[in-house]
């Protein structure tokens, strides 16, 4: 068939989700945040929950997430998204609530809020973008920065004696009685993107079923922070991040 015969409205099999706004994302080229935003938009669209979903944006590169998804949003103080989400969900149990946080936000300054929201089993979805770095502020070490990995506050590579160990917060959260679904995904290939979407769907459905906290970690790249091209970043991630942050479900109850 000729290409111009294919390019017809009735033949569209993939296009930008209607839940995404028309704003151009401020992210760097190839940033995983964009992919995950898109997936959440698709999930919200498919589950038909656009009018009942409240998103909680972090402080981090995703601080302006609210510019990109056509739903109601709250922008939280650094690390406190789980506290906001707790209140939003408890006050409006019939609404769908998700938080969206980076690794600095969720696993450094927000450690207490993260652990206690999960331990209370707040009936929410937490999306966790683990790029092993503070993207927003210019590439400082994050709690999840790998041993030996360079960042602007460990310019010679993370050294546990000086900088502490990388923190597997997701493994911790999986041990808590309040979480029902804890999974680690990625977005470096089309297949992995599709799997991440499935995980998100399960997480939102769990919330509809009142199952408690679902956490979807996405191991992500930050080409600016890592100082590599987006495609090289993906390779680096596969080689270095996945061995330490292995993909898969940690808990599914």
């Amino acid at each position, binding site marked *: 068939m000729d290409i111009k015969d294919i390019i017809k409205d009735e033949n569209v099999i993939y296009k930008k989700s209607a839940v995404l706004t028309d704003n151009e994302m401020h992210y760097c080229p190839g940033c995983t945040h964009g992919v995950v935003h898109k997936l959440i938009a698709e999930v919200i669209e498919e589950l038909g929950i656009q009018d*009942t979903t409240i998103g*909680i944006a972090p402080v981090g590169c995703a601080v302006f997430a*609210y510019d990109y998804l056509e739903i109601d949003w709250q922008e*939280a103080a650094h690390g406190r998204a789980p506290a906001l989400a*707790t209140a939003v969900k408890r006050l*409006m149990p019939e609404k769908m609530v998700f938080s969206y946080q980076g690794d600095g936000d969720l696993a450094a300054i927000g450690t207490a809020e993260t652990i*206690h929201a999960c331990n209370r089993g707040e009936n929410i979805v937490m999306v966790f973008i683990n790029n092993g770095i503070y993207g927003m502020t210019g590439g400082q070490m994050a709690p999840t920065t790998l041993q030996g990995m360079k960042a602007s506050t460990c310019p010679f590579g993370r050294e546990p004696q000086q900088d502490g160990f990388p923190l597997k917060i997701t493994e911790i959260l999986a041990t808590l009685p309040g979480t029902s679904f804890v999974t680690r995904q990625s977005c470096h290939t089309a297949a992995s993107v599709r799997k991440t979407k499935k995980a998100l769907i399960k997480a939102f459905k769990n919330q509809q079923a009142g199952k408690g906290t679902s956490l979807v970690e996405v191991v992500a790249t930050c080409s600016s922070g890592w100082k590599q091209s987006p495609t090289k970043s993906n390779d680096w991630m596969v080689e270095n991040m996945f061995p330490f942050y292995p993909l898969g479900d940690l808990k599914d109850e």
Partner: protein
Amino acid sequence: MKELKLMKGNEAIAHAAIRCGVDGYFGYPITPQSEIMETLMEEQPWLDTGMVVLQAESETASINMVYGGAGCGKKVMTSSSSPGVSLMQEGLSYMAGAELPCVVVNVVRGGPGLGTIQPAQSDYFQSVKGGGHGDYKLITLAPASVQEMADFVDLAFELSFKYRNPAMILSDGVIGQMMEKVELQPFKPRMTEEEIVAKYGDWATTGRTSNRKRNVITSVSLDSEYMEEHNHKLQAKYKACEEDEVRYEEIMCEDADYILVAYGSSARICQKAVEIAREQGIKAGLLRPITLFPFPTKQLQKLAQSAKAMLSVEMSAGQMVEDVKLSVNGAIPVEHYGRIGGIIPSPGEVVDALKSNFIQG
């Protein structure tokens, strides 16, 4: 149906919150105000009104839960005492920046640091000047009785929703711990989402409905022009507060030569000091600011025309006295008398201070 009860100031706050239809309370224990959450937990309002009551993991979490709840247009509150309120400063700045209403109760104890659990009024600056970062104000109410502890919950919510700005009830260990008679307001039902929209407008994140654009609660912008405009909007609200919301009580000020200025429990003591002074033939009066922000600047200016001097009496090293001075602007002498570290001045001491500053002095 109004009910007359004998209870602590802290308990009165809890009961008033339930009765005026508060949607959520989030808090963390600290002396001398833990009875607020304890009373709520004992009353289990979630069974009746659906009010959410949650013990948070910290004050930082509490204030951010309050942020989340307020962002949904709900009437939400927290309470704490001095060190805990310090931990809320970032959150309060965020709420002011995002224009969110809420009520925060500070049952002040002596500082700095862990300090003492005894009563003090040394968090005036923090409440009134803005302990967090940026240009913002908290609408600040200072109850001087258990009755006002109860009444100001509703009032604080009214004001905070009217201006979409956090309101502080600045109390202290005396008012929080003492029991007095209190007449509780009748139960008001919690507002429905529709009622909230009708009364306060359609800004909350309750889920984007087809008849409005999505709502976003945020305090950030990278566009400085926008940020300046936003800040001017905040400042305009504070100006409006100063025009319209000043509240104070005057006791024997008409003919007074000497005005005591005092709020909260100090005002109770000064009331007695005025009685004693008058007995001794000193024409004293009391101006009790009920709103600390907005401050009764104009009324003090007026009194400065007839009075000879003013004495700001505070359980602090001298904080409100600055606002008294700024009001009077040099027209008459203004001095401060205070006890600190958890000590409560006696009425007699206050009279002595009046004399030594202005009369024998």
